[in-house]
């Protein structure tokens, strides 16, 4: 069941403090996190926010460290908005929607140093672990951004190193060793229509959204990534209000991972 209305009408609802599905402006739909859903992967997760569903998988590879960071491993984040998950997504290589999503999720994990890159190094200058995270949409009912970020973190936490023998990964044997993790970062995207800010948009709300701000938050409440999207500008006051809302709501998501 899809519900649509005009922007003007939606604002009339917002003025009364609720949305078309009866939720309050700062209310998440039901959020569910499952891990280990794809045992072939070194780490995996499924996140559902309402009917929006996203899978994330982590594969570990061996690579050469970047020349400017010879004692560090790294992450690579890719995302696919599959045509399986929405009539609006086309087949083919990732479009800008998927690329932006992947890069924003990447920054949230990288900048917060969720993974200790130095401990991913095996031989400085020669060999290090690369944590490759792939995020795949299965059903788009709005708010893929938050579902994707949460799924990535959950998959990273679920990840276990495979055995290495003679410098070659044996993917068929897993160790008990987790990735070297610091604190998780959590991302919340806040949207704005007219004068109202709100979180966790439904499909219709996302389509009418004028501007959005994705905020990644550390456990201490520091910001570790920001991304403004949408065709409309934001004034400073909006930004601070949206950040406050995101930081507040991030605590709820943090409990789930």
């Amino acid at each position, binding site marked *: *069941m*899809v*519900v*649509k*209305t*005009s922007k003007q*009408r939606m604002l*009339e*609802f917002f003025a*009364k403090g*609720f949305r*078309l*599905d*009866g939720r309050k402006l700062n209310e998440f739909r039901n959020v569910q996190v499952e891990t280990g859903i794809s045992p072939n992967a070194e780490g995996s997760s499924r996140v559902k926010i309402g009917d929006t569903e996203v899978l994330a998988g982590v594969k570990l590879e061996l690579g050469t460290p970047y020349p400017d960071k010879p004692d560090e491993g790294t992450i690579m984040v890719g995302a696919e908005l599959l045509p399986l998950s929405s009539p609006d997504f086309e087949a083919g290589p990732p479009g800008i929607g998927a690329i932006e999503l992947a890069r924003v999720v990447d920054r949230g994990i990288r900048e917060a140093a969720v993974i200790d890159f130095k401990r991913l190094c095996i031989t400085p200058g020669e060999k290090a672990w690369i944590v490759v995270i792939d995020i795949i949409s299965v059903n788009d009912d709005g708010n893929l951004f938050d579902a994707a970020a949460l799924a990535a973190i959950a998959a990273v936490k679920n990840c276990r190193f495979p055995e290495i023998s003679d410098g070659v990964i044996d993917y068929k044997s897993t160790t008990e060793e987790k990735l070297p993790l610091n604190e998780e970062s959590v991302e919340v995207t806040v949207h704005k229509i007219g004068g109202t800010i709100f979180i966790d948009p439904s499909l219709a709300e996302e389509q009418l959204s004028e501007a959005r701000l994705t905020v990644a938050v550390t456990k201490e409440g520091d910001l570790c990534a920001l991304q403004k999207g949408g065709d409309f500008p934001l004034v400073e006051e909006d930004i601070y209000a949206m950040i406050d809302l995101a930081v507040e709501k991030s605590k709820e998501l943090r409990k789930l991972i």
Partner: protein
Amino acid sequence: MALLAKEKDILVPGEEIAKGMDYIPGSGTYRDKDSVVCQRFGLLSLSGRTAHIIPLTGKYAPKKDDTIIGIVADVSFSGWRIDTNSAYSAMLNVKDATSEFVSKGADLTRFFKIGDIIFTKIFNVTSQKLIDLSMRGPELRKLEGGTIISVDPNKVPRLIGKNASMVTLMEGTGCRIYIGQNGLVWIKGEPDAEVRLIKIIKKVEEEAHTPGLTKKIEDYVNEIKKEAKKV
């Protein structure tokens, strides 16, 4: 000879309905030698000796005489292209939309513009699925404001109910309701009434196949009314 399934059985394509020549294959079924076989996922319905399937799923297939909720997708010189919530868009010709005289080359947006919602009737569908619409009819009109809900078109009969019983229950929320055969439902009321009605429509859609639904919805309507009074 043998009827292998009974009325209201849920059948899946390929399942045998009857053996022998006694039964006639109606819509959603086909004859394969001496068997009548299900061709669509749905409920078996027998009228006399004709077996047909009432589909449980599937996108809307535009039919002559259906009244639908359409959304104006484009404006041309002679009319409007209308999104019908199906694989095929429809044409509403200016002569079928108004009895006013409209001069050639006039700006048609003063009647309907892109995004407008109309309650309209299909008066013709060709084999190539070219669809003609008309606004001539007492109930047919442009619908201003409100909210559109898209439901499974196969659930529309349930949403209307026998003798419009279900839709009358829903109007008890204080909203105006127009239900299109194409699965689009337009509602308009006070915001809190609309939110309640959306919940009700969702429940009817989810439980359309269960018995005793009218009573369940009656109870649900009263329950929500009580909750609303508390707030």
